[in-house]
């Protein structure tokens, strides 16, 4: 990063007034910062980590289309791990798995679909792009409060000496723990509401060739596997595996409320998950390199904060922009950050950053897939939380049916059908099955 280039102020000191201040150097904040700086606005991005990405974690994949929308052709330069060509879904019990796999040659062609990344390196690259576009990247700086005058946000107070900075508008992209959003009175759900999932993950090192052999991959290609079933201890959640160049990311995400209710540790679930026989085979001999934990905001549309106020906008995880059904979040963060920046640029032309002017942001979000998808799945998290059978009983029954049909013994097929039907009815009365199907249809479509 070149200091001083395109930068106002003298002697490397940060000016105390900006067109815009962005709080948080993740996908939302960096998309906003990059878009604003590229359009010639003076913008500062404040990040509490030593570098952007040092506090960030996800499964995970980033999707090409939304990323390229902000950072065109990013795949030619950004630090990526593997190009994902295969997406698998497993229904797993403690000793068996039904595996559905989708593989497409299309995913291997420009503009691609998704890549696995390490967020610590990928976000750092995004920050370097924003800096090159002329933004002030201020790291190791925790924003402790918003500066307000007559109910209007006019800047931020950081933890540094003389750390007050002023701006026409502050974009809050602080991530899943919405300290500032709460302080600004914009939050709609209290932090204690049952609206987050806790994800824990391990990065396990394994040689490239072993990864490609075990996952049946072309060199450089990657697999993303999502796993539902008893492996989350029957709690509402999923397991995941992502292949990186020479590591495997493996983890579980479980609704925090159910973990607390069952007095269960997330890392115990992960440890058991790693022992599941079909999974253990994939990670055999891989040695741990890093352990991480992060919350995922899954409150969805119902818990979205007020997205704009006088002199302030909220984007990304801080705004609850996660689609828990499709495991999307970074894409929504990038798009919302870009829209927040475009709103600021539009308001700049009129010289007004009050509530009314900034409501353009909400209008743009409504038109985009962000609010449409969040609205579509607004009942998803309560539905999943109240139907634990989807994560325990149903995958178990699916496996039992598959096992019986594939086991050749002295039972006739007709007897097997009768046996299975009786088992199924004893476990899931017809009325309950219909109700679950109806609830699923109502909540997820």
């Amino acid at each position, binding site marked *: *990063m070149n*200091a001083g280039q395109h930068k106002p102020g003298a002697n*490397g*000191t*940060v000016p105390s007034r900006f067109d815009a201040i962005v709080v948080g150097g993740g996908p939302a904040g960096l998309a906003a910062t990059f878009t604003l700086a590229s359009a010639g606005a003076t913008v500062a991005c404040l990040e*509490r*980590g*030593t570098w952007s*990405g*040092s*506090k*960030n*974690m*996800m499964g995970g994949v980033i999707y090409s289309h939304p990323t390229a929308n902000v950072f065109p052709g990013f795949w030619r330069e950004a630090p990526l791990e593997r190009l994902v060509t295969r997406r698998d879904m497993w229904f797993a019990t403690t000793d068996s798995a039904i595996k559905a796999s989708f593989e497409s040659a299309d995913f291997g062609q420009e503009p691609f679909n998704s890549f696995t990344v*390490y*967020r*610590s*390196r990928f976000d750092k690259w995004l920050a370097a792009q924003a800096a090159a576009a002329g933004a*002030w990247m*201020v*790291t*190791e700086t925790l924003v402790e409060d918003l500066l307000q005058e007559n109910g209007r946000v006019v800047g931020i107070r*950081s*933890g*540094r000496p*003389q*750390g007050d900075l002023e701006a026409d508008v502050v974009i809050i992209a602080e991530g899943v*723990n919405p*300290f500032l959003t709460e302080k600004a009175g914009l939050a709609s759900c209290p*932090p*204690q509401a*049952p609206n*987050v999932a*806790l994800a824990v993950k*391990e*990065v396990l*090192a*394994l*040689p*490239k060739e072993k990864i490609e052999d075990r996952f049946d991959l072309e060199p450089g290609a990657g697999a993303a596997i999502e796993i539902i079933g008893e492996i989350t201890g029957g709690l509402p959640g999923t397991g995941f595996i992502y292949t990186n160049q*020479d590591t495997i*990311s493996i983890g579980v995400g479980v609704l*925090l*409320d159910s*973990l*607390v209710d069952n007095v269960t*540790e*997330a*890392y115990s679930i992960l*440890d058991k998950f*790693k022992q599941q026989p079909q999974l253990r085979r994939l990670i055999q*001999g891989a*040695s741990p*390199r*890093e*352990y*991480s*934990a*992060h*919350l995922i905001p899954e409150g969805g549309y119902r818990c979205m904060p007020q997205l704009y106020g006088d002199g302030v906008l909220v984007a990304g995880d801080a705004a609850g922009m996660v689609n828990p059904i499709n495991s999307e979040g970074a894409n929504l963060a990038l798009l919302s950050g870009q829209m927040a920046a475009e709103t600021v640029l539009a308001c700049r032309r009129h010289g007004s950053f009050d509530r009314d002017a900034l409501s353009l942001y909400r209008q743009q979000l409504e038109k985009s897939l962000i609010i449409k998808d969040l609205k579509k799945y607004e009942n998803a998290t309560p539905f999943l939380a109240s139907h634990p059978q989807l994560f325990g009983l149903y995958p178990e029954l699916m496996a039992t049916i598959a096992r019986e049909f594939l086991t050749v013994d002295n039972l006739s097929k007709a007897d097997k059908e009768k046996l299975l039907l009786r088992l199924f009815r004893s476990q899931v009365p017809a009325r309950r099955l219909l109700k679950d199907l109806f609830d699923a249809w109502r909540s997820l479509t």
Partner: protein
Amino acid sequence: MSAEHDQENQPETQPATVSGEETAVPADAGILPDPEELGFPQPPPTVANKLGLVKFNLDTQPHLSIKNAGVCQRRCRQKFCTHSCPAQVYHWESEEKRISISYEGCLECGTCRSGGCPYDNIEMRYPRGGYGVQYRFG
């Protein structure tokens, strides 16, 4: 306040780097032989061993605290935080009848303020800028 000129620069007051970074394998070290093949068993999957792989920039100021020790003593039977925290930051000291906090190993996820303590009895802030967890992969 100074702009960031070097991404790798340290906080103004240089804190100690803790938690086994010296012994842990650096991110870019490449792939070592499988320890099991060499006859070294994998360490047991304790949280302490997991945290030993994580790099921290230790702050001398705690950023976590219990709001009211009486709630832990009298109301909270399960000591929920000792289970919900993915970094096992909270321990119940049964003799002293209080929760002790190893804030040094905090992964800053926010579980303790988001329902991980059902009594909302934990005050969580982020560590000061530049301190705390530093993911090399993330």
